[in-house]
């Protein structure tokens, strides 16, 4: 056990799996940086420095920089997975899925089923998501909802370094394509995590706080905001259960429903677009499976259904804040 940053936790998961399994390799844009040039090698290690140092240990045949051609290299990673490898491809920002979505949606997600179970696609696509950097409309989205909508894709979003490492190792070993979403605001977040290898099952939520008054569901960075809101609300005598779902697909429906049965109230907090999104999905689950336990309407705390604005003054209003989460919880409880 030691304190690690989110970035370090991911880097460790990658290097441990690469040591363990020669079929694991990395591919992406500037995941080393400087390839073919006269300056420093491994100059970037990814735009956020997550894969830094891996080129040195594993060499350019397993840490592969590519031209700026997402359709080609994401597609090639899918093909390599379907033919027996375990690639971890980096899609720098999840917004760029727009460029290569055919390969993700129509190829990776569907091969196993469409080919009658002959193929499996043990691929991980690591990708950054999230706002907070004033990076504007095309570099700030949180598109887990979009990926979750497609049958065949698994979707993971860790909320701290411990989860980042354990979920990534599990995702690499999983035989299905996994979208692994890293919130760009969290790379320097610190937390305790084991130094050795470990896995966290996909589709198993974690109760990150226990309280009898209300169930607050979220995942990724929003979990930390929910926990802060829950801490602060104790002063108002409100005790929250905070469920960190970790994955949207598979989804731990049981934990959500069990908790609603105990608290009778539900707030869902999410950074993704609200329409047909994660928050709406959890609300629907509650309506379908836990209706009788609900003592009040479900409350959703999400951005408005707009494009993400550039100006800090607007982005601050856009992303759910601790204040808005607290207000949502109060409203759900009618206090």
């Amino acid at each position, binding site marked *: 056990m030691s304190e690690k940053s989110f970035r370090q936790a991911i880097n460790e998961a990658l290097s441990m799996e690469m040591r363990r399994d020669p079929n694991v390799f990395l591919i992406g*844009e*500037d995941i080393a*940086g*400087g*390839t*073919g*040039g*006269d*300056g*420093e090698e491994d*100059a*970037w290690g990814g*735009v956020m420095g997550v894969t830094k140092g891996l080129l040195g240990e594993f060499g350019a045949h397993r840490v592969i*920089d590519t*031209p*700026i*051609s*997402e*359709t*080609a290299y994401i597609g090639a990673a899918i093909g390599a997975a379907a033919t027996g490898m375990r690639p971890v491809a980096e899609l720098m920002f999840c*917004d*760029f899925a*727009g*460029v290569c979505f055919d390969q993700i949606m129509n190829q990776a997600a569907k091969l196993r089923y469409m080919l009658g179970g002959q193929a499996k696609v043990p691929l991980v696509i690591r990708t950054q998501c999230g706002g907070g*950097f*004033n*990076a*504007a*409309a*095309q*570099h700030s989205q949180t598109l887990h909802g979009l990926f979750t909508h497609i049958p065949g894709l698994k979707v993971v979003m860790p909320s701290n370094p411990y989860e980042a490492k354990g979920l990534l190792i599990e995702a690499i070993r999983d035989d299905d394509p996994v979208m692994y979403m890293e919130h760009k605001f969290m790379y320097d977040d610190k937390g305790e995590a084991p130094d050795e290898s470990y896995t966290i099952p996909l589709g198993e939520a974690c109760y990150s706080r226990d309280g009898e008054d209300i169930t607050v569901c979220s995942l990724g960075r929003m979990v930390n905001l929910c926990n802060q809101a829950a801490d602060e609300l104790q002063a108002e005598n409100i005790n929250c259960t905070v469920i960190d779902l970790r994955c949207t697909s598979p989804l731990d429906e049981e934990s959500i429903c069990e908790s609603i049965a105990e608290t009778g109230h539900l707030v869902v907090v999410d950074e993704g677009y609200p329409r047909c999104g994660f928050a709406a999905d959890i609300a629907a689950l509650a309506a379908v499976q836990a209706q009788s336990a609900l003592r009040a309407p479900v409350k959703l705390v999400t951005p*408005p*259904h*707009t*494009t993400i*604005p*550039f*100006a*800090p*003054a*607007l982005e601050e*209003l*856009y992303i759910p804040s601790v204040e808005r989460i607290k207000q949502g919880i109060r409203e759900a409880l009618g206090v």
Partner: protein
Amino acid sequence: MTDHTIELSPEVALAAYRTMRTIREFEDRIHLNNAKGEIPGFIHLSAGQEASAVGICMHLSEQDHIASTHRGHGHSLAKGCDVVAMMDEIYAKRSGLCAGKGGSMHLADLSKGMIGANGIVGGGVPLAAGAALKSKVLSSDRVAVAFFGDGALNEGATMETMNLAKVLNLPIIFAMEDNGYGEATPSSWAIGGDAPARARGFGLATYSLDGHDFFQMYQTAGAVIADVRAGQGPAFLHINLSRYYGHFEGDAASYRPQGEVDRIRDEKDCLMIFRHKSVAAKLVTAEQLDQIDEEVIRQLDGAVEHARQAPLPTAEDLLTDVYVSY
């Protein structure tokens, strides 16, 4: 090499110098003020690449369109976007070109024929083809220019668009600005084969240009744009030039060999070359250029001050320009 300076009037030369100087000063200010923490968001500067933007855009009217990239300040200024409104936008102010909603990566002014910078590599190239398509459908003589980088040449969107433009005979110029790098990766490595040969493979008329030399840029772009305007089909410019700052503000650029940028600044700076050539040819005087330098500095002082003082967007702005009603 032929001497391209002769063909220019002093007025055009001075206007070109003023715009190039404005771009340089604009980028230098943003570099400094970003380091002071004044500017939010992701910033990509085009200092060093001025001659390409200006040499091309001087041949375009407001009815001609350009699409740009994440490195779009220079293209925007060259296409006539307002310096103050651009600075306001980059400073995230309500009076900005895009009301503070776009920022550096999404500068645009449709009224000036500037369709937009773009956060997606290759994303603007098909949009430029769309402006060219408008011209074709309406049988007008308007043209479009797609500015894009060496890195963007490897996107499917770019290659598909080159083919589409040829097949539909669109009035578009593909202006590939090869600054040697896509992020941290050299273009010499990332582009398989030869860039102009690739464009020729699509049947485009292809030209290789030294983007450090305004006069060469201006003259060749003028001839190419005239051909495209006359309906002779799409063309491709391979423009070699150099960026001075990191890929984005904050990039230490350690992937570049030591001293590379200093050497380029000393030997190939487009403003320096312009000055040498134009003064030597007695097209303009050094004093005239010095005076423009001073005027541009004052103009940018004003723009930065305006941007600092301008009011922020307000809560209502969050929910406008989108179809959802609340």
